[in-house]
């Protein structure tokens, strides 16, 4: 875009230099906190909470990670987080794409309008508001602290978002494809599975990635609905918050381990993230 044709000359060169400087500066500032935590997790454990903190570790050590593994069954928590995030995302994407398909094929009718408005309102709910009623429901159903609970709850909570994103993808698929498949004798579900889904695959993948992120990073519901059996990593990390627990070394290692996989994955799927945000933005 700004490929240098506009305003050439020393003026242009100054601009380019300024752009590079600003870009690098901001990137450095944005990376700083995460890099700092990363380095802190590799410091000797008393250095992390020293009152004269330094940026660079005096010595690289995995003490904090060891302490973390010793002080709590963090491996279990990671597994819980993983199951909850992955399974709920799968459910969300399957159910959500089916529903979005149906909505996109009935656009313009009063029914789909009402449904979409409801979905939008549900999407806007503040989670702390519904968290406690959900807790009561979960208790009544006897699902407190069960591994399946978070899977079910995350699926429900993220559905409005998934629906909202996917409806626009499905709308972009021309109805001619449906008709062609129908003429060939396909049932609606077969049409959905074999024709529509492959066409919308990029959009579905993008939505799936975002949903995975939402479920992985959730804190509030995990806090309220789990205790020891189904605890997820964010809850475990929050337990380092208690005022009198000053051993922040394990906290930094947990934070690093928790965010690292997501960051690495994001590097690979940037393309999908960009297209998802694009779809979300140009939606209405």
């Amino acid at each position, binding site marked *: *875009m*700004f490929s240098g*044709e*506009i*305003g050439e000359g020393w003026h242009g060169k100054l*601009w*380019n230099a300024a*752009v*590079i400087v600003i*870009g690098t500066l901001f*990137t450095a500032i*944005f990376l700083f*906190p995460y890099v*700092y*935590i990363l380095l802190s997790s590799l410091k000797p454990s008393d250095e992390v909470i020293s*009152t004269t*903190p330094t*940026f660079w570790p005096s010595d690289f050590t995995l003490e904090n990670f060891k302490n973390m593994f010793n002080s709590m069954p963090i491996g279990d928590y990671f597994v819980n987080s993983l199951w909850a995030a992955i399974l709920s995302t799968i459910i969300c994407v399957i*159910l959500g794409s*089916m*529903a979005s398909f149906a*909505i996109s*094929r*009935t656009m313009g009718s009063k029914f789909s309008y009402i*449904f979409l408005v409801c979905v939008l*309102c*549900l999407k*806007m709910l*503040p989670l*702390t*508001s*519904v968290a*406690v*009623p*959900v807790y009561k429901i979960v208790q009544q159903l006897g699902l407190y602290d069960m591994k399946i609970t978070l899977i079910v709850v995350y699926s*429900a*909570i993220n*559905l*409005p978002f998934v629906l909202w994103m996917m409806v626009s993808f499905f709308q972009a698929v021309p*109805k001619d494809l*449906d008709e062609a498949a*129908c003429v060939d004798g396909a049932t*609606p579900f077969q049409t*959905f599975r074999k024709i529509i889904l492959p066409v919308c695959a990029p959009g579905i993948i993008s939505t799936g990635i975002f949903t995975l992120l939402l479920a992985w*990073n*959730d*804190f*509030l519901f995990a806090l309220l609905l789990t205790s020891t059996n189904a605890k997820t990593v964010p809850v475990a*990390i929050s337990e380092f*918050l208690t005022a009198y627990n000053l051993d922040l070394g394990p906290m930094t290692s947990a*934070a690093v381990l928790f*965010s690292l996989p*997501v960051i690495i994955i*994001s590097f690979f799927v940037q393309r999908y*993230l960009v297209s998802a*945000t*694009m779809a*979300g933005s*140009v939606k*209405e």
Partner: protein
Amino acid sequence: MNILKRRDILYFLLPSAVFMIAFLFFPLLMLIFDSFFQTSDTGARSFIGFGNYLQAFTSGVFWKSTGNTLIYVIVAVGIELVLGLTLAIVFSHKFKGVSVLRTLALTPLMIAPLVAGLIWKFMLSNQFGIVNVLLEKLGIIASTDSILWLSDERVALISCIIADIWLTTPFMMLMLLAGIQGISDSLFEAARIEGATRMQVIFKIVIPVIKPVIISALVIRVIDAARSFDIIWAMTQGGPNFSSELLSVHIYEMLQRYGDVGYASAVAVLFIIILISITMLSMKKVWNVEQK
């Protein structure tokens, strides 16, 4: 011709609808129902009509929370917009390493809000936080105890805002960048031919053309910022003295710490009404922009 008959539509929609009704719609109804009751310590419930709502309107903490939420949203989203736009423009240039820089700059996007809150809590601590050490070394403050980011009423909210800006500016940047990349090249060609300067291109072409994207991003961010909970809870838990208490935090505290179900439900209902109104209003506005 629609290949989906009524019955098929139902099958496709039903599973999703069941989930959402059970865990979103039904709790919402419970919330509204609870807001009209008062629950005593023994669990006995008594109907008090709008009593809880009255209590909210006359409660100092409620208004403080609302005010804090307003400040939080305006300041955080405002700064995120400006920063995000600047970065989007920067990263829309083609120079060596731009995609590497951009990928790196997106790092905070993936981090859990809770973890972001903890990272900043750690960094802003006046005991072992590196921020004050840096500021002291740069001569901006006198000692590492000059600014008590998390325990001084005057700056607690600002600390939370800083964490939020760090966490979500990349998102704004991403959205706006996508919008900028969607601008057709012919517009830039025309500008080049007209001899426009870069600043003119930014203000007279880029910003007006991506206005729909800016508005969409703003709506999404405003609602999300208003609902913030994780960051605040990790950093200050609403304190000190409710100076960083947002409505989300207030609702949670009232439910968990004080067990005042009726009052908390009423505040929650009010909050939801505000959020939905904002959404509806901006939806109308976005549609109008599109019609142009």
